[in-house]
């Protein structure tokens, strides 16, 4: 039967509407930018791994200290030991890559476990998790890490493990909240009534269907935080140590010359940090929005 459907016009092409008005488009842009960054990171990680670099990042050249960009073939100039900044930038991501993943893994895995325990099985766990959460939140994170690193060893893995641990309760409480919310919606009872066993409920219905976006956000935020944390620590002298390059200690080393008007050695890594972290934030938020909208429907 014929209906006068009006798709001809109603594929209401919003072409005339400026892009920042279209949430969907924005989120897509965010996410694509984020993914682009992630690809860049992974790409440079691979480049570093197979060292396909313009120069040897550890090659010291005392005749060419603090060379400005574009001079003598160093695209981004050289640092205080005459090492090529670009190469160090590329290889610098290795300082964060695996450790960052480690931090995220710790946070997500343990956080999820605790969260489920607290939210799904009763108040005992709940009080414990809340206590630990408040306990860890009572420290300024940087101070805690500074203390640990000063007390033990300035090693990126230490830093990241601690970042991970400090994020565990955050994730836990989020998951807990989510589960309690679902409980209010009588969703879990329904599921149990349907005879689903706990494993299915938890993993499929709770975690997969309802906590995806939340976990993704946490993961991206965790990575971003890890990088910033290392940068601050580098400034305080407890970050990744020479000769291993990390963006943090590159910014720090370059910043020594910032006041003398030599900006490039600190600006290059700083911008790298800036864009990367922005990438992670945007990726997280965009994905979250998209998934939420999906669920909203």
């Amino acid at each position, binding site marked *: 039967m014929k209906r006068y459907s009006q798709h001809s016009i109603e594929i209401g092409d919003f072409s005339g509407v*400026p892009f*920042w*008005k279209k*949430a969907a488009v*924005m989120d897509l842009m965010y996410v694509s930018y984020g993914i682009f960054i992630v690809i860049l990171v992974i790409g440079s990680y691979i480049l570093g791994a197979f060292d396909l670099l313009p120069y040897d990042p550890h090659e010291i050249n005392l005749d060419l200290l603090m060379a400005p960009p574009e001079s003598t073939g160093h695209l981004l100039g050289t640092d205080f030991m005459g090492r090529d900044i670009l190469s160090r930038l590329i290889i610098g991501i290795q300082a964060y890559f695996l450790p960052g993943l480690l931090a995220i893994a710790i946070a997500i895995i343990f956080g999820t476990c605790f969260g489920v325990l607290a939210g799904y099985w009763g108040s005992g766990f709940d009080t414990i998790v809340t*206590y630990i959460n*408040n*306990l860890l*939140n*009572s*420290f*300024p*994170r*940087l*101070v*805690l890490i*500074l*203390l*640990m690193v*000063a*007390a*033990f060893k300035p090693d990126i893995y230490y830093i990241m493990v601690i970042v991970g641990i400090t994020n565990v309760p955050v994730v836990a409480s989020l998951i807990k909240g989510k589960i309690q919310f679902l409980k209010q919606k009588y969703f879990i009872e329904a599921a149990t009534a349907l005879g689903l066993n706990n494993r299915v409920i938890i993993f499929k219905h709770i975690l997969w269907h309802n906590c995806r976006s939340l976990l993704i956000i946490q993961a991206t*935020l965790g990575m*971003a*935080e890890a990088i*910033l944390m290392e*940068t*601050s620590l580098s*400034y*305080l002298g407890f970050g990744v140590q020479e000769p291993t390059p990390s963006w*943090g200690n590159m*910014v*720090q080393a370059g*910043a020594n010359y*910032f*006041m003398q008007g030599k900006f490039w050695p*600190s600006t290059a890594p*700083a911008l790298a*940090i*800036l*864009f*990367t*972290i*922005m990438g992670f*934030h*945007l990726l997280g*938020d965009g994905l979250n929005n998209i998934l939420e909208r999906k669920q909203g429907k």
Partner: protein
Amino acid sequence: MKLSSVRPIALLISKELVIAAFLLLGVSFVIFIILFLSPGDPFSTMLKGQMLSGAAKAGAREALGISQAWYSQYLSWLANMLHGDFGTSTRTGLPVLGEVIRVGINTLYLTVASMLLTLLLAVPIAIFSARRGMTFFNWTSTIFTYVVSALPIFWLGYIVIYISMHQFGFFPLAFGSSSQKFDWLNFMLPVFVLGIGNGTISEVVRYLREEMERVFSEDYIRTAHAKGASIWKHSFKEGFLIPITETIATKIPFILGGAVVVEQVFNWPGMGRMAWQAAQDRDYPLIMGITLLAAIIVRLGSLIQRVVHIMVNPRASQE
């Protein structure tokens, strides 16, 4: 305020205080464990090549009051602390309590001021994008928040100092000095850097915006609209008060962390700087004092948040 709501609040405060006490206990214990496990007996490093005989060493040990096993050390420290005696810094010999309070106040200025700045930036952006949707202004400002919360904060500090020197030709020494008197501009620069650079602003904006959007779509807002009342007035408590206090409570630790760096850059005589110094010297009593004070500040923040929550939301008091 009405009597009916006073009781729950008093109750809550006492409850919170008990919890806080437990937490502080936990904090002190964690720190103690870290320090205890850390390799190296700071005492002997301090005595390096200054002692003649073992006997003298022992004498000095007891002079420093660290002779017993770790748990008794902890317990005695705890006992002293309950008497309000936090010991003296092994570095300067000054009583920890006084020192920590002195720097704590400076840090509090910095933290509170930059918290306010963060909110001053975040709240309008959140409101606009929650009400008007995405206009060009909102979009750019949102992106701006993403940018600033991704900057390495000390680098931002350097930039600000460089600009203030070469563009405006003054050197930011907060708190002035004997040669330079206290100057608001100098005071504001670190606040500015910490306020926008503490890496939380984008989260804050996002959170506030979502909360407001949620509240604006509540039924009771529609009702208020229907009876011609101002929806701002009606959405104020749930849409602004609660989320903002929540943000403050949750972001204080981050800002305190940022303060460590900013105080180094701007030479701010605060807790962060002292924490760094203490961490380097393994100045146990001082570390304890500082972390405890930080914890107390954080707890205070969350206490305030809880109280506000109760006061505005009668439902919470029943729970």
